[in-house]
């Protein structure tokens, strides 16, 4: 597979062209993963609706049957359940890491463990997320491990 980046300083729009058989699994995977940069989600904050780019969301959290999306420093209420988000974000860098949280793996800065076997991820905005043992294998494969 060839990856070519043409440097064009005169345009702000990024154009991606995938050349290959449309039915090919790799092509499909590339297409789905590129959707991450285009996809948006509706989030509500202070009675106003915002179009949130997935690229800017750090994590989704479910609290008291409500789902919230967190960007660098703001919180938005999302009109979808966590399991629905988990399904729709399957091919994006988002991954469920515990019962209540789906995090954007691209926003992880580092991982830390505690003496009694707890695992924690520190996000780029400084927030710490608990990682349940059950999701470690998925996390590894999402980060490119076996």
């Amino acid at each position, binding site marked *: 597979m060839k*990856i070519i*980046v043409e440097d064009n300083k005169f345009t702000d729009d990024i154009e991606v062209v995938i050349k290959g058989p449309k039915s090919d699994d790799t092509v499909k995977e590339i297409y789905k993963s590129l959707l991450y940069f285009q996809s948006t989600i509706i989030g509500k904050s202070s009675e106003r609706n915002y179009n949130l780019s997935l690229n800017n969301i750090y994590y989704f959290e479910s609290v008291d049957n409500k789902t919230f999306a967190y960007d660098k420093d703001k919180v938005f209420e999302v009109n979808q359940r966590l399991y629905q988000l988990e399904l729709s974000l399957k091919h994006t860098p988002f991954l469920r890491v515990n019962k209540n949280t789906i995090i954007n793996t691209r926003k*992880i800065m*580092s*991982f*830390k*463990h*505690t*003496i*009694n*076997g*707890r*695992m924690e991820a520190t996000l780029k905005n400084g927030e710490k997320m*608990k990682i349940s043992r059950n999701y*470690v294998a998925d*996390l*590894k494969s999402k*980060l*490119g*491990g076996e």
Partner: protein
Amino acid sequence: MILLSAIVYRNSDVRLPYLKLELGGLLISIILGISIFLFRLEKGNSIFNIVLGYLSIIPALLVLRGVFGTHLFRSASLLYIIMIIIGVIYLIVVFIVSKRYKQEVDHLNSLLEEKNRKTEEQ
């Protein structure tokens, strides 16, 4: 419990009541369950949880002493010796768990670094 009662029967020729053994076993299982729960608790300070997990095992020893009495615990000091032995085993378990998770975290961090490096290169 059955094994311990067999030892008591062999050494002292005393048959312990089955119900007492069953109830003792049940209580010990509950206490051990609580201890594991406290050890793995995700809230609070991890070192505090570990100490709490160890302290919650101690009542299990008292139950054991209540069930078998002097047939098994001939001297009071034996109880303290067992507490120390359990403490040592507990520390070994903590060490193994901690080491295993350290390896996993190191692996995840290396995957993350690799991914960041690739992204920067592109």
